[in-house]
């Protein structure tokens, strides 16, 4: 008896990932599901800002033209899609995809599952009033302290609404803030009909989701071990999970694609953004990463098994974004000879001018690119003969005025500072608004009764 597997392919690892990947995943070999993760911690606030300017916006816009490219293949091959591309406007995103489907002549052939209820921006005052402090998980401060600055607030949903949408016949499931891992867990649980309280299975699906949620970062991209020997990265194969009914799974990629799936490539992805490996907490359960067993099971095939987990917690995480202040970062390049000394002198002069102007900053940070920008004091002694050094100086303040003035202090250094300076063609650095992240917890019952799943016909 040949064992039944469910194939879930990663199409996007973040908003801005390689646009060809989903197309190749759909056409490059058999898959059952295409999983596309778009949401990082601060993505929601960017989308919220876009929505405030245009009520039809607020989702990952590239998702729609991408779906236009792949929908004919997706429908023909019976592939289903799960994605949190909906951002803060999943309904707008679903409607845009429906429109594209009809334009492609797929009317009557496509059903879209729409998941809402994660967005609690309009409920915040009510929740605070009813005794939910939504305190910052890192500092313990209650949300009330920055309530007037909040830009977006979304609870992390798990796999449940995705399973429900698939059960309702959805071909494409579009959500807002569903966890990256939930996009993979949902299809596996739906296909095998597992109980959502089978905690080892939940943990296994969570680990599968974690492995593929960053796309090619599990299949040769950003791989440090033996990076020179990773071939074909002009056309990398994004990872695919082949899930089995016993909870184990295989990580692989399509044949004739670049990159590599090895124990090393999977391990590097497993430890990425890891906290306590003994308890990787998601809305669906708690996975124990110290139970994961990896084995190379063939070329570009890694078998993952042995995963154990525990029950879900009574709380859900909430991702809140709030307006923090302003920042700007500017650069100048100093050339040989004595490039580093010139850059250091320029930094001293600039700082003196900022002080003389009486400008107040929360932070002024200087880095010398080519000397110490990424490893700080660990970088070792600077090369006295360095061909060039880039001075990179950034400032941050709660008020806009000092940051604005800072951006006008960089260019003058060209004619009023140390010699052999170049690389300022980009002009004045831009003043950027800083939107900060406020992670909090909330009783899951407050969220779950508001989650809604609809299935819409094209």
């Amino acid at each position, binding site marked *: 008896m040949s064992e039944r597997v469910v194939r879930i392919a990663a199409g996007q690892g973040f908003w801005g990932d390689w646009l060809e990947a989903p197309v190749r995943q759909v056409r490059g070999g058999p898959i059952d599901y295409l999983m596309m993760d778009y949401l990082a*911690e*601060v993505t929601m606030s960017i989308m919220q800002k876009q929505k405030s300017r245009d009520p039809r916006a607020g989702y990952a816009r590239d998702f729609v033209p991408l779906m236009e490219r792949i929908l004919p293949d997706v429908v023909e091959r019976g592939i289903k899609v799960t994605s949190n591309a909906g951002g803060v406007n999943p309904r707008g995103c679903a409607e845009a995809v429906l429109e594209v489907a009809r334009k492609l002549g797929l009317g009557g052939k496509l059903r879209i599952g729409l998941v809402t209820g994660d967005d609690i921006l309009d409920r915040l005052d009510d929740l605070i009033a009813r005794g939910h402090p939504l305190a910052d998980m*890192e500092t313990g401060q209650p949300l009330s302290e920055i309530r007037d600055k909040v830009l977006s607030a979304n609870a992390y949903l798990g796999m449940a609404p995705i399973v429900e949408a698939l059960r309702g016949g959805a071909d494409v499931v579009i959500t807002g803030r569903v966890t990256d891992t939930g996009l993979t867990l949902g299809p596996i649980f739906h296909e095998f009909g597992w109980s959502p309280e089978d905690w080892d299975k939940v943990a296994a699906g969570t680990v599968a989701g974690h492995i593929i949620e960053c796309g090619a970062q599990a299949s040769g991209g*950003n791989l*440090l*071990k033996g990076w020179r020997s990773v071939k074909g990265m002009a056309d990398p194969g994004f990872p695919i999970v082949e899930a089995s009914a016993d909870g184990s799974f295989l990580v692989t990629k399509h044949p004739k694609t670049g990159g590599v799936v090895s124990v*090393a490539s999977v*391990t*590097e*992805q*497993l*430890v*990425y*953004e*890891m*906290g*306590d*490996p*003994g308890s990787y907490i998601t809305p669906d359960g708690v996975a124990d*990463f*110290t*139970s*994961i*067993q*990896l084995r190379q099971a063939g070329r570009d095939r890694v078998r993952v098994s*042995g995963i154990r987990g525990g029950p879900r917690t009574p709380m859900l995480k909430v991702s809140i974004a709030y307006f*923090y202040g302003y*920042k700007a*970062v500017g650069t100048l390049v100093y050339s040989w000879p004595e490039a580093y000394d010139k850059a250091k002198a320029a930094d001293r002069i600039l700082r003196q001018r900022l002080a003389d102007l009486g400008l107040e900053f929360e*932070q002024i*940070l200087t*880095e010398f*690119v080519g000397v110490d*920008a*990424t*490893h*700080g*004091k*660990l970088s070792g002694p600077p090369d006295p003969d360095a061909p060039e050094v880039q001075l*990179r100086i*950034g*400032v*941050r303040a709660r008020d806009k005025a000092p940051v604005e003035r800072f951006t006008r202090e960089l260019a003058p250094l060209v004619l009023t500072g140390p010699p052999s300076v170049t690389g300022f063609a980009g002009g004045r650095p831009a003043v950027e608004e*800083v*939107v*900060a*992240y406020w*992670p909090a917890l909330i009783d899951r019952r407050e969220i779950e009764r508001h989650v809604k799943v609809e299935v819409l016909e094209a």
Partner: protein
Amino acid sequence: MAGSSRKKSASRSGRFRRPAVPPSRPVQLRWLAHARSGDKGNTANVGLIALEPEYYPILVREVTTARVARHFKGMVSGVERFELPNLGALNFLLHDALDGGGTISLKTDAQGKVYSTALLRMEIPVPVSLARRLIRK
């Protein structure tokens, strides 16, 4: 667990001297391990993975919480260590490593993507015979 490994390294640095220690020499971690790092708020994590299974016990013994804290002194406020023997890996949490983290940070490496290689600069003592083999590779 972080707590137990911290205790272990504390007793190791005590006055007690072990007899007949084989001669050792310092080797950069890059010859023994690969790594990947990421962020959670203002904390960077570094997963340190043994290049060969037999290097893992050396990493457990030598890459202690205290040593890593010393290595990153002035760059982070605290270090926690977790063991993953199943993956031949250690996970380090480096607190307050990212100038506020995410969008607030002014750092080039605002998301801690290359703290991984900063840890690989650290030197640990390994037996001379192993050190010779590593450098020859």
